[in-house]
């Protein structure tokens, strides 16, 4: 096993641990909606929420790093250049995440000054981590990019996949500089913030996961490189062709000119089209392989990725993206419903698929199957759908009563808290969150055990033969 692959296993382990933290924090946040004075002044909603959304970003990012550290040496047929540095930075990354989380929980808030931004909490969504930690993350990303480019140079090889990956890394890294900004003007702040958030999760991350899925499909289905590369370029063309100006769907209401309503709405409405292509492609692959894959969980999580992406990002997004609808749905639980579904379908399922593939290779398993992965697959997806469904009902109620009827005043907000559709939607979310958490527990059990038995059985046979 290459050193890079050993590092990959560390990153993937850390990713799954943070997935658990994210789930616990998520359950915590759901309680405040039921009881507003829960842990009041001890651990407020915003601290729990920060833990929830920041671990979301970090676990998926670590999943990406782990996946790429796993596949890159196989692609380049050599050890990753600068791997020693990357190994050190993994621990720096983990330490930074831990310290930041502890400070969030224990110190919580500083005064309205620069010191708070440097050492406690920057208070900008997803990038609340203080600047010192943001420097650490930037460093990790910089070394990661160096690893990819240097390995490619040393191997004197740039494959289609690595070419796309390297091209994607540059904007991904540059965009992260917005994590340090703190402009006074909120419109300017949000303008650049959306460059980071949208062009990460709806552009550069889409390309990243596409590269990872390209390698996954090559290993899982033994597809030819030429076919995979063709598909990868098509996806880049369509995703970036719609997604770059799809950024405009975040510029409807932040004080920017009104032409964004037309531009953002138009490109945003086109975004589901490539996602349908991906669903068809997934079915084609499933069908032509006659479902004869040896790694069942990896395959099913890949299917879940295609379908989840289409429904969560495509269907749910289209329901709320046109400006006339969005005027009322913007910033409600409807948004939360879409966000959970889209992140799940677009990224979480993909990382889980890769995780199972990596485990198969790491354990030398002949077959990856069993009951546990099916239970975790069922519980996680059921939990997620239930959460998303509850949030959609609550969100539509909020848009209907709080916004369209009530005009978004504080009084309308307070009346909303007693609307049955709203409250029951939020209870549903919490209950299905527990189902999801149950699925996570089974997932951990499965990840620890799957694929080990044939190896153990082989060992026993060898031992018996030897004695």
């Amino acid at each position, binding site marked *: 096993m290459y050193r890079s692959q050993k590092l990959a296993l560390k990153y993937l382990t850390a990713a799954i641990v943070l997935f658990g933290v994210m789930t616990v924090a998520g359950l915590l946040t759901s309680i405040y909606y039921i009881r507003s004075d829960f842990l009041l002044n001890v651990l407020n909603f915003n601290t729990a929420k920060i833990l929830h959304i920041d671990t979301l970003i970090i676990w998926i990012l670590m999943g990406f790093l782990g996946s790429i550290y796993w596949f890159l040496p196989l692609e380049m047929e050599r050890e990753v250049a600068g791997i020693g540095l990357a190994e050190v930075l993994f621990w720096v990354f983990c330490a930074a995440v831990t310290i930041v989380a502890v400070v969030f929980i224990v110190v919580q808030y500083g005064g309205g000054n620069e010191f708070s931004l440097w050492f406690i909490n920057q208070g900008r969504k997803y990038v609340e981590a203080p600047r010192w930690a943001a420097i650490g993350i930037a460093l990790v990303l910089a070394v990661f990019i160096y690893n990819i480019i240097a390995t490619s140079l040393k191997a004197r090889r740039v494959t289609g996949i690595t070419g796309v990956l390297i091209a994607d890394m540059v904007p991904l890294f540059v965009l992260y500089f917005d994590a340090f900004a703190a402009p006074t003007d909120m419109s300017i702040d949000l303008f650049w913030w959306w460059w980071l958030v949208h062009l990460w999760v709806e552009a550069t991350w889409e390309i990243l996961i596409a590269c990872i899925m390209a390698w996954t499909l090559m290993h899982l289905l033994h597809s030819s490189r030429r076919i995979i590369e063709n598909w990868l370029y098509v996806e880049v063309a369509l995703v970036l062709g719609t997604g770059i100006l799809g950024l405009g769907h975040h510029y409807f209401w932040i004080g920017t000119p009104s032409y964004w309503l037309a531009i953002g709405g138009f490109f945003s409405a086109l975004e589901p089209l490539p996602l349908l292509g991906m*669903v*068809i492609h997934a*079915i*084609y692959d499933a069908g032509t392989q006659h479902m004869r894959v040896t790694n069942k969980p990896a395959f099913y999580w890949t299917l879940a990725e295609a379908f989840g992406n289409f429904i969560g990002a495509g269907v749910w997004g289209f329901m709320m993206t046109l400006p006339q609808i969005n005027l009322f749905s913007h910033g409600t639980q409807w948004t939360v419903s879409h966000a959970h579904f889209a992140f799940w379908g677009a990224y979480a399922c993909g990382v889980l698929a890769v995780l199972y593939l990596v485990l198969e290779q790491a354990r030398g398993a002949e077959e990856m199957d069993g009951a546990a992965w099916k239970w975790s697959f069922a519980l996680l997806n059921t939990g997620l759908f239930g959460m998303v469904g509850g949030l959609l009902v609550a969100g539509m109620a909020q848009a209907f009563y709080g916004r369209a009827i009530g005009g978004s005043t504080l009084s309308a907000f307070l009346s909303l808290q007693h609307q049955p559709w709203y409250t029951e939607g939020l209870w549903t979310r919490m209950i299905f969150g527990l189902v999801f958490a149950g699925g996570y527990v089974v997932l951990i059990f499965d990840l620890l055990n799957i694929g080990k038995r044939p190896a153990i059985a082989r060992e026993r046979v060898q031992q018996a033969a030897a004695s």
Partner: protein
Amino acid sequence: MTPQALIFSSLLLGAFVLLAGLYGLFYSIGTLRGARYLITAAYGCWVLQFLVTLSIIMLTPLGSGWKILIVASCLVYLRIPPVTWRHLRQLHGLHEGGRLNIR
């Protein structure tokens, strides 16, 4: 837009894309299995999507630009599954022999 129109319009828009997905799903599985009833179901879904499109045009207060976009999208969605499938078949047909040794 009235509150009722808000919910009604958004549900129609969601149904619009969902039916496109169902069309693609049934078309693909039907083509794989050579099952005519699934292909028929697929086109049935597209017809439903078209009816949803008509509902959006006639029953929602969305702007005319958006209605035109939705009609155009509906027609494009009709072509996506067959075009994608043909492209995939041609792609795999030409390069089926090219397996990469990745271990």
